[in-house]
């Protein structure tokens, strides 16, 4: 058996050089196995990612050849685009309302489902269902019909002799109505909270009971502190999702009335696919990327002060 054929057969070859070489065939096979993902990542994520960065310095409308314009797109966004400011304001408001609301609902439902009773797994599945249906177009259309002036929600209000509310037509209310849709999809956060709740040691609850703590006190002094790592994870993931929200505003209100629900994602879509300003939209998407990066960084940095890890958070 030659040196090479021994490697190919996976045989042991003494010496450091042999060891180094021995790993290669295996790792190449591994690459081959992950190649579907790798190709998908390169073609559908990496290339568009790099391309959008390059396009952000160009004037490109897909129909004509792109021209390099340097920082002109970025300068226009920050100095001459009132719609950008409006959309950013709406999006921040949306994130500030939708993310905490969703986490609170997810935690409440997780606590409700963290009991031992017959058929609890059926209830858990039922509560997870909205997340599977998700923010799809069909659900958004349904939402629109429910909250329109002549819709189901107002019909229900009328049973209680309450006046109809213009949920989607009133510029002061429309954004709030839109935020209710993602709140409804609390499933993935709920499952994580549920897993976290199950990790809370029973002896801590017993100890707090012995000390005579009320249920509210137990929640704030025992449950919540131990859940903070999961709160951090959920907060970051949901914040990223919220910044990128598109479907709800696009289908339900089309960004209106009076641009009160004109989320960042819609502005990107309009610039890219309504006005075909691909360079400009690319620049805006990079700005969004940086905004999300900064928010995530701040959350991570401040989490030292409020996220408690049983091992002290340093992995020791």
């Amino acid at each position, binding site marked *: 058996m030659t040196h*090479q054929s021994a490697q*190919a057969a996976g045989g042991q070859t003494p010496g450091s050089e042999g060891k180094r*070489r021995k790993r*290669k*065939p295996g790792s*190449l096979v591994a*690459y*081959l196995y992950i*190649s579907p993902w*790798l*190709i998908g990542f*390169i*073609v559908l994520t990496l*290339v568009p990612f790099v*391309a959008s960065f390059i396009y952000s310095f160009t*004037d490109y*409308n*897909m*129909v*004509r*050849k*792109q021209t390099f314009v340097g920082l002109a797109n970025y300068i*226009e966004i920050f100095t*001459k685009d*009132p*719609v950008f400011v409006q959309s950013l304001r709406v999006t921040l408001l949306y994130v500030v309302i939708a993310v905490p609301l969703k986490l609170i609902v997810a935690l409440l439902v997780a606590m409700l489902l963290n009991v031992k009773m017959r058929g609890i797994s059926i209830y858990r599945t039922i509560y997870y269902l909205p997340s599977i249906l998700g923010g799809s177009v069909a659900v958004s259309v349904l939402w*629109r019909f429910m909250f*329109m*002036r*002549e819709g189901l929600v107002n019909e229900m209000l009328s049973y209680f002799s309450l006046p109809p509310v*213009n949920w*989607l*037509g*009133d*510029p002061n209310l429309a954004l709030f109505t839109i935020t209710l849709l993602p709140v409804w999809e609390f499933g993935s956060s709920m499952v994580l909270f549920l897993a976290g709740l199950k990790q809370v040691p029973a002896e801590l609850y017993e100890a707090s009971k012995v000390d005579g703590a009320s249920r509210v006190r137990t929640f704030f002094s025992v449950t919540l502190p131990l859940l903070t790592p999961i709160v951090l994870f959920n907060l970051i993931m949901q914040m990223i999702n919220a910044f990128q929200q598109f479907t709800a505003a696009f289908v339900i*209100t*089309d960004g*209106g*009335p*009076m*641009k009160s629900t004109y989320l960042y994602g819609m502005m990107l879509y*309009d610039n890219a*696919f*309504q*006005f*075909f*300003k691909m360079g400009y939209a690319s620049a805006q998407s990079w700005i969004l990327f940086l905004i999300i990066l900064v928010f995530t960084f701040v959350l991570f940095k401040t989490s030292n002060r409020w996220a408690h890890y049983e091992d002290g958070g340093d992995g020791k």
Partner: protein
Amino acid sequence: MKNRNWRKAVALPLVAMLATALTACGSDESGGKAPEGKTDGEKVTLRFSWWGSEVRHKALLEAIDIYTEANPNVVIEPEYGGFEGYYQKLVTQFAGGTAPDLTPLSVDWIDEIAVKGDLVLDLNTLKDYLNLDAFDKEFLDSYAVYDGKLVGLPMGANGMITLYNKEFFDRFDIAHDTVWDWETIHTIGKQVHEKDANAYLLGMFDYRIFLQPFVNQLTGNQWIQNDKTVGFAEEDVTKAFSYYQQLIADGVIQPVAESSLYPDMADNLQWQNGNIGMMFTLASTIAKVKTYTPGVDVAMFPVPSDAKTSAVLVNPSNPLAINKKSKHPEEAAKFASWLLTSEEASLVLKDVFSVPVVKANADKLVEEGLIDPTVAKAVDLALSNPGEPVNGLSSNQELNQIAQDILERVAFGKVAPDAAASELTERLKDKLALIK
């Protein structure tokens, strides 16, 4: 050695794929010259794409069958769907070099696709294969020739009209033959709302059915002039905004907080329930409106007696264009010509693209009762007093969105008419300075 081969085996396709992807991102510089292939007798496949309703799909599929039966060497692959997302898909296809051979163009896209993008053929270069004599030359010159280029064959004539609910007019004693101008709208609309607080003469306004024509009637200019200046003075737009706020205050128009959810008036529940009297719309939408409200008729778009131009929008319903990169432009032209000029095809298409532009065919359809008389009347009305064809810049979607946003704020009473006019002028000027 084997290791290296492995590495190559994996790396090469990856590099090739990356290169392909990067190349696909760039644009083709060849400019897509029309190929000069002779296609007579040779088997050719054409891709024909369009958008529309089910009725239109059925009619076009039937027409394609008739044509391919008579021309067995031609295969036509239909690609059809709704209007939503059609433009986005089409532009992406053009960018990727996979656009269909034949596609209708909405008037709003002509400037970008046909003029600036130069992506479709000048049909004058294919006149040997087209029966251009069948069309009214003046109509073609006015509505299908841009920058000296015949961008497509009009699939039908379309125009802006006043569409009204007959039952509503009877209920409020409004004469069906009322000649509308902005003043009569205000007077009659106010009376209607005084009689019934739930009834409104009109649903809502947008820049296209109100702001542009109203201002054009005052100025006689294009909304945006070809030299990239605005075609109005601030006081003209102030007048329009003040008038709009007056209509809302007097209950002539449904409150915008109720109507803003329905950009398409045909979907507005109050219209469907018969609580709104009329709308300004294109003749091509009549069929859809009639599915909810069958009892409608048409009248002339409001034109004041002292208007400098009627500003009545007339346009070809979707000129049918031929992709510059089509491998068989002659065959595509022959099919387009047959589809839009032959009596045989017109009897199949009827009014799916509004009234045919070829007069002989339109007359035949009316004579045989194959065309909706309301649609025929609407097109006649619009063509009887057409405004200047709208230029490319006045159809620019980004500029029009600015007007639409400010108009909406005016409607909600969030901005005073003069401040809105000043903001609109400034923002349009800023944007125009950036348009190349």
